[in-house]
């Protein structure tokens, strides 16, 4: 397992040159699982080079946990092989659906939050954890819509799924902040629903604001102050926990992203 106060970065291709020249002091990297599940050699060689020096955890975007169709067993086979290859301390994916009716939307999409879906999500998450043979964390989404059919809050739904599955939270405080602004709830209410003893990792990232004020989870900016404040609140409520900075679009040079790790240390003080 990672040290509970570990600080990590999302592994991104634009940083490879800097990374392979400087091998910066980072406690661990998080790889997007799908980038390394195919047999293509170059990504695998690079991941092996990273793994030779750092722990690597896996973070997926394609599990489709809440899709109406059954989980993709071929996908899980490949994920299991990759997790074994890098000896991932844990694997995570999202409490969402990503495709339906044979079409993959390549987005993290919300469902209504209803008791009826808790057992479905929990049994699937428990199955994934058993099949991978290592801790499995579910990440909360950023979302832009809520559904008329919902009868419970997202945080109550999320906590119930994690509890019933016996899996873990992969808590994204940027996502909590973005959704709280978009849907008008208090992000601290969300944090209060989290059993921090079950938090595998916390993500922080930046977001964008659309003209109408809607926040979009773009991961293309530094982590903004309100997200650091919420992170600090989470740390006081349930730290220590491994923390990872994500930056996925308009990716700046690696030293800029590394500086975000220093900000995380500052937010913990």
């Amino acid at each position, binding site marked *: 397992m990672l040290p509970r106060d570990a600080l990590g970065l999302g592994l991104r291709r634009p940083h490879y040159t800097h990374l392979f020249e400087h091998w910066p002091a980072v406690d661990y990297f998080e790889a997007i699982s*799908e980038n390394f*599940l*195919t*047999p*293509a*050699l*170059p990504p*695998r*060689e690079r991941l092996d080079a990273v793994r030779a020096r750092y722990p690597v955890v896996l973070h997926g975007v*394609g599990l*489709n946990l*809440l*899709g*109406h169709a*059954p*989980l*993709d067993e071929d*996908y899980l086979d490949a994920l299991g092989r990759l997790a074994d290859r890098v000896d991932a301390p844990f694997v995570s994916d999202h409490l969402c*659906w*990503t*495709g*339906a*009716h*044979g*079409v*993959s*939307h*390549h*987005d993290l*999409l919300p*469902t*209504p939050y209803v008791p*009826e*879906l808790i*057992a*479905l999500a929990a*049994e*699937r998450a428990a*199955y994934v954890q058993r099949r991978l043979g290592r801790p499995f964390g579910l990440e909360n989404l950023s979302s*832009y*819509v*809520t*559904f*008329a*059919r919902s009868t419970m809050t997202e945080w109550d739904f999320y906590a119930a799924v994690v509890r019933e599955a016996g899996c873990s939270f992969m808590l994204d405080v940027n996502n909590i902040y973005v959704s709280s602004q*978009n*849907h*008008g709830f208090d992000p601290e209410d969300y944090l209060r629903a989290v059993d921090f003893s079950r938090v595998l990792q916390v993500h922080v990232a930046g977001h964008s604001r*659309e003209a*109408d*004020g*809607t926040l*979009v989870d773009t991961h293309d900016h530094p982590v903004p102050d309100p997200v650091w404040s919420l992170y600090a609140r989470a740390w006081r409520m349930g730290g220590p926990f491994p923390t990872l900075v994500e930056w996925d679009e308009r990716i700046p040079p690696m030293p800029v992203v590394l500086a975000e790790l220093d900000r995380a240390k500052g937010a913990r003080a």
Partner: protein
Amino acid sequence: MITPPPPAWLAALQDRFGAVLRTPLARATGTLTAVVVAYDPDAVRDARDAHNATAAERLAVYNRQYWFRLFGVMQTAFPLTTRLLGHWRFNDYAARFLLAHPPHHWALDRVPDGFAPFLAEALDPSDAREALVEAARIDTAWRELFRAPAVAPFRPTAADAARLLDARLVPSPATALVAEHFPLLELKADLASIPGEAPVPAPARLPHPRWWMLLREPDGVRQLPLAPLEGELLALLARHTVRDALARLEAACTEAERDALPSHAQRWLARSVERGFWATLRGGG
């Protein structure tokens, strides 16, 4: 795995939501905009209005994200084609392709599969068609090199030498052979220094085709020029037995070329093996 069956309403809701995502963006204003009136009213009713936006406006966030994400994937997979067409026109072709062939797999890098032949069919007569078709083919070759698994290069044994003439050489997936009729590989190398999204004019047709061998190496793609007949030989070898390939090349040669062909062909074949162009030898036993 035994899990409770998902409720029927979930499949219906996801069907409606998916249709919203795939709703084409309008191009009439010169920017890509979501057309919320085109959304299924039931999909809009599934969602709630937010404090600062209607349900449809919030669904439009997902609708735009779907398209912009996939345009980005397509542009990354077809950088040369994108620059020749310009981003705006490329996105138009990409949208038509994606409407006809929505993604079916969790791997994002499979989204552009099949785009090159689609584009060849779909190009307007006003486009620099031949250069664009060739550009898409070069982009595809580049993509395939990076997607190839680890492959040990073919190193012939004495037994292979004995059956070589009647066997077929199989190219390594980590290599590609490119015949270009336009200097597009040069343009591809220059793209980084040509910023922007406007179309780059297609270069003039070359007086004679140029052949290249592309080899995936640890630090990128190595691009090796080939003599015209050498390129043609490798292309023939990839499709025919060695004996047939040599015969076809000889038949296509001029008188002057034919005299030197045996020694040249031997050297070109040996060089292609040394460079790791082949993965294996099939048949001939």
